[in-house]
């Protein structure tokens, strides 16, 4: 104790800067260089195009922009896209939750196969996503003659667009939920059941509050894709302007017709939706990692 209370310090005492050991990180110039490269890469491929969309959309002033987005072709494409959104997203949300619930709260053989198969629409070409429904429901398709005889048309109209969109957006909700629910395990649900709650009640009172942020993000991704899908919808739409053109298809129609301002004006609306989705995602990340 006596030795510890010595307060006079020796003259050769070294004052050293606080720093990180050199072999534990890269030299400053390398860190700076890498950071600059990454910022430049993201700026060139993401930020610049985003700015460009709005620059093009407003290049002839707000009046022209407004005229473009309120033209009848633009408005009918917006209406169609919203219709598809309202039909597709709720259905796939329900079935996405159901898939995640089935594959994480129960044990059964072939579970990982089911998860892999359900993820297929994510990794195959959207054009194939449209083609398969033409092969099923088109006039030359397997069910074609029967459908024709009963005057039922399931492709080249709004129904076809909805079916193809259901296909391409199917994995998004489950993709977000499965890892989340896997980590949470079954303990809380089992506790709820032991306390006498039924399966449905357990789901709404125990499971849902635990997954709400992941679910919200899944729904956002599902919606973004439902609005923006181009390949699959292209195949099954029939491309009738004012009737079966969704917003992305109308963008193409404007672009091919050299109506650049209109094309970019409509694009800017979808870009705003994309940016809002990203902001919501960041908010959800922040919210779900923050201690309650």
């Amino acid at each position: 104790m006596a030795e510890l209370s010595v307060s006079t310090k020796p003259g050769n005492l070294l004052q050293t800067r606080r720093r990180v050991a050199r072999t534990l990180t890269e030299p400053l110039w390398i860190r700076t260089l890498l950071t600059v490269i990454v910022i430049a890469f993201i700026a060139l491929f993401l930020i610049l195009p985003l700015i460009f969309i709005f620059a093009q959309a407003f290049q002839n002033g707000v009046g022209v922009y407004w005229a473009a987005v309120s033209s009848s072709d633009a408005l009918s494409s917006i209406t169609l896209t919203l219709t598809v959104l309202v039909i597709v997203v709720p259905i796939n949300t329900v079935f996405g939750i159901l898939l995640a619930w089935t594959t994480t709260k129960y044990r059964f053989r072939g579970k990982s196969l089911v998860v892999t198969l359900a993820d297929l629409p994510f990794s195959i070409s959207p054009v194939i996503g449209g083609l398969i429904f033409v092969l099923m429901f088109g006039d030359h398709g397997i069910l074609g003659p029967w459908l024709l005889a009963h005057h039922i048309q399931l492709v080249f109209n709004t129904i076809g667009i909805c079916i193809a969109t259901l296909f391409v957006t199917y994995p998004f909700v489950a993709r977000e939920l499965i890892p989340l629910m896997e980590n949470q395990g079954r303990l809380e649900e089992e506790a709820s059941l032991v306390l006498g709650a039924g399966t449905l009640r357990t789901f709404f009172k125990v499971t849902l509050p635990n997954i709400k942020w992941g679910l919200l993000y899944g729904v956002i991704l599902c919606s973004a894709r439902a609005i923006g899908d181009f390949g699959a919808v292209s195949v099954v739409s029939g491309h009738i302007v004012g009737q079966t053109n969704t917003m992305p298809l109308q963008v193409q129609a404007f672009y091919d017709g050299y109506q650049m301002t209109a094309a970019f004006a409509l694009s800017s609306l979808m870009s705003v939706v994309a940016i809002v989705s990203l902001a919501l995602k960041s908010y959800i990340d922040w919210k779900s990692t923050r201690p309650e």
Partner: protein
Amino acid sequence: MSIELRHISKSYGPYQILKDINLTIQTGELVALLGPSGSGKTSLLRVLAGLEYADEGLILFHGEDLTNAPIKKRKAGFVFQHYALFDTMTIRDNIAYGLNVKRRKDRPSKQQIRERVDQLLHLVRLEPYGDRYPSQLSGGQRQRVALARALAIQPHILLLDEPFGALDAKVRKELRQWLRHLHQQVKMTSLLVTHDQEEAFEVADRVIIINKGQIEQIGTPSEVYENPVNSFVYDFIGNVNQVRGTISDGLFTNGSFRVPVDNTEQADGVAFIRPDQFAIRTPDDIQEAGRTLAATVTHIHPSGSIIKLELIGQDEDQNLEVEVTRREFDALALSKNQQVFLEARKVKVFTVN
């Protein structure tokens, strides 16, 4: 290789985690750095290894100033609590890593490296496991690999950061004895960080008690256990009963319990008595009434060779713990709710600030 630390201080923002640390470790000594979590013991070890730098002070390895030397120049072996094995490499590659990354001119030949790894595998008794991956080994085995890997570069000093902290009790005990044995073989200057006093006492030649960034006491295990310098050390090292009272005229008093102390000033005090330093008496054979507390048995833990008794003192909030040998216990024929007298063989009184 001796280690000397002079006036080492370090802080993170407003928190000073090391305050003017001075200590010397002799060549070949195994010293344990013992303290509660957050006491700064791991930071001190990291400063020694060069993973972090001190704000002030000097670090001397065998008299050479290495305060600001890079990690590599210190030639320290470091064993992490969670092993930090490279799990994409086999056990052999893990152990050989420090040799394989040497500059070409310093690097031993492939043949030499192989022989060295064989020796080390033998030393840590893991010869059959050389070609496995860390994930295929148990925790105790992994920690032995970590030790072999640290020894492969023939370090001048060995630093161990809670090396047995992640292992279960039985393996921990085995490894402790094994490490003691290993140290006797290699006689390398070693510093072991731990929060487990039993571990420190069993393994180390000397123990350094650290708390809130300051050294409280340095000594051999028996010195520290027998003569704790202050109430923190007394409390931290092993179980202890605390009896509160007042000090006046060179006497600590709690009811009829009176112990003479050196201090003549008026103050509040606490008497520390270890559970094994009580003798259980009947009213007839009390030898020194002033060192005796009346108490009632509330619980008996009858397992093991030492019987633990829980008692409650005359003032209701005074809980006491006493340990007696089974033979004593049988002779006394104690039962629950029985009133007894506890005579303290050894008491240490500290003033309360």
